[in-house]
């Protein structure tokens, strides 16, 4: 039994979610291979080969992999899949986009966003926005799995000494082409990897006030900025800030829910946070039912005071 994990990276840096995915793979107690597909990925290979639990790094370096389009990566993974018992990738937009394509090409099913490995064929995954957990057993020859990164503690990114094997590239499918990318720049940590998240809801009133009020607090705590779906729908924050069933699933050490009432769909995205602080003017807001610490009052007084005193 050998397990394949597909690395997520930007051709320069190995994304930390890969380390969480490798932790899930580690629970299968089998040899682990890590696939790095991209273009000019030498720094990613250096990082990948010293990850603590990787036995072999497989490298496919070709121009058609540079943007990690599903069609080309799926061709590659399909070409090497048959020797593996399990193929895992983190449930990021990269993994969610690509892996079902591979599974279907091989006539296999996929188990999405697992949060627990029960045995080599049985896994637990959230359904209904995390309001229930399903224990699923798979009868497929190869188990295709996406992993919810926040449910597994990252493996050590050092201490390993994997061998590196170069793969020959599959032909370019020419089906799709990335012609632009607007990745929000800045010094803030990524939402799904941040230790602290400052999230705002419709209670903030406008885009201007969202940034005015939350940025100083996020700066002070080196936090990522998040938002509820209501705030995103109202145009206060961009969609990639959205925390919830239809946005990002997060589990930071500290989560500030500011002006967020606590719709089921939002709670589904942040209920695994270690400590939740809710600040809201409505004392009956459902968010207080799950917050560790609650403060009732005017956000526009409380948040600046908090920034000043931290």
């Amino acid at each position, binding site marked *: 039994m050998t397990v394949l994990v597909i690395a997520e990276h930007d051709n320069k840096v190995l994304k930390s979610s890969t380390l969480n995915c490798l932790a899930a793979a580690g629970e299968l107690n089998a040899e682990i291979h890590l696939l790095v597909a991209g273009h000019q990925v030498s720094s990613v290979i250096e990082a990948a080969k010293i990850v603590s639990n990787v036995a072999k790094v497989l490298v496919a370096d070709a121009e058609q992999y540079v943007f990690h389009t599903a069609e080309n990566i799926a061709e590659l993974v399909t070409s090497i899949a048959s020797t593996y018992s399990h193929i895992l990738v983190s449930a990021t937009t990269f993994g969610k986009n690509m892996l079902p394509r591979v599974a279907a090409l091989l006539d296999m099913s996929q188990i999405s966003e697992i949060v627990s490995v029960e045995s080599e064929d049985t896994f637990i995954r959230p359904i209904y926005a995390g309001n229930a957990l399903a*224990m699923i057993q798979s009868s497929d020859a190869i188990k295709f799995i996406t992993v919810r990164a926040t449910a597994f503690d990252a493996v050590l990114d050092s201490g390993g000494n994997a061998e590196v094997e170069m793969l020959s590239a599959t032909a370019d499918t020419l089906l799709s082409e990335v012609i632009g990318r607007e990745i929000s720049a800045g010094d803030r940590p990524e939402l799904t990897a941040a230790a*602290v998240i400052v999230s705002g809801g419709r209670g903030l009133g406008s885009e201007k006030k969202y940034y005015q009020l939350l940025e100083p607090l996020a700066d002070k705590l080196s936090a990522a900025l998040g938002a509820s*779906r209501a705030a995103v729908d109202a145009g206060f924050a961009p969609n990639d800030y959205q925390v919830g069933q239809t946005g990002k699933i997060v589990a930071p050490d500290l989560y500030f829910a500011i002006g967020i009432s606590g719709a089921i769909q939002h709670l589904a995205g942040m209920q695994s946070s270690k400590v*939740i602080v809710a600040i809201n003017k409505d004392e009956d807001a459902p968010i207080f039912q799950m917050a560790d610490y609650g403060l009732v009052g005017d956000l526009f007084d409380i948040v600046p005071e908090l920034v000043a005193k931290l």
Partner: protein
Amino acid sequence: MKILVPVKRVIDYNIKVCIKKDGSDVDLNNTKMSINPFDEIAIEEAMRLKEAGIATEVIAMSCGTLASTDVLRTALALGADRSILVELEHNPEPLAVAKLIKVVCDKEQATLIICGKQAIDDDSNQTGQMVAALLGWSQATFASEVKIDGDSALVTREVDGGLETLKVLLPAVITTDLRLNEPRYATLPNIMKAKRKPLDTFSAADLGVDVSPRLTLLKVLEPTKRTAGVMLENVDALIGKLKTEAKVI
């Protein structure tokens, strides 16, 4: 250009699901069911392409029990020209749905499939990608903007950390994200009209597709519930708790 829009009947997004006492599954008896919200966005996008003169026909399809007829009627009321039900005894797995969609797509000679990025019941987020694989088509998932440009589509995708613009060759599968559009409401005259629009029914056997499951649901568990913590008087008390009790700052 014909557009095929697969839709799924799911628990209404405002309803919190209950788990059966024996833990065998969720309990959907007497629960309000609706069209999957992402699929409603898919219908809307298809209608806008038809209204712009790009699409000639919009066909809605669903795979499920006879009860799924109601979401097809919703799709028809929102403007779809006709609809197809693949009648099954149970909700099939995404791979089986993908196979059924492929066969219908081949029959109908559609050049574009628009579907929701995921259904809000099993949250699988697989079907669109699987259909694209089976058809050998390009795929553009999590779309927040779609422009058809000759023999290709320019799709803005919601990816981690921002946006990506993808140019895909047609035919293609596009899956919808929330911000793609705001679906219209079905008007009463359109709801009445929908009752007279065509709804064809097939079985999986008619289409020659094996829908037997690959996965077994062993049980359904309650997630660990968080309990309410303490309400604090002021900012100083909060900072104190975060420093000394939770030790997170």
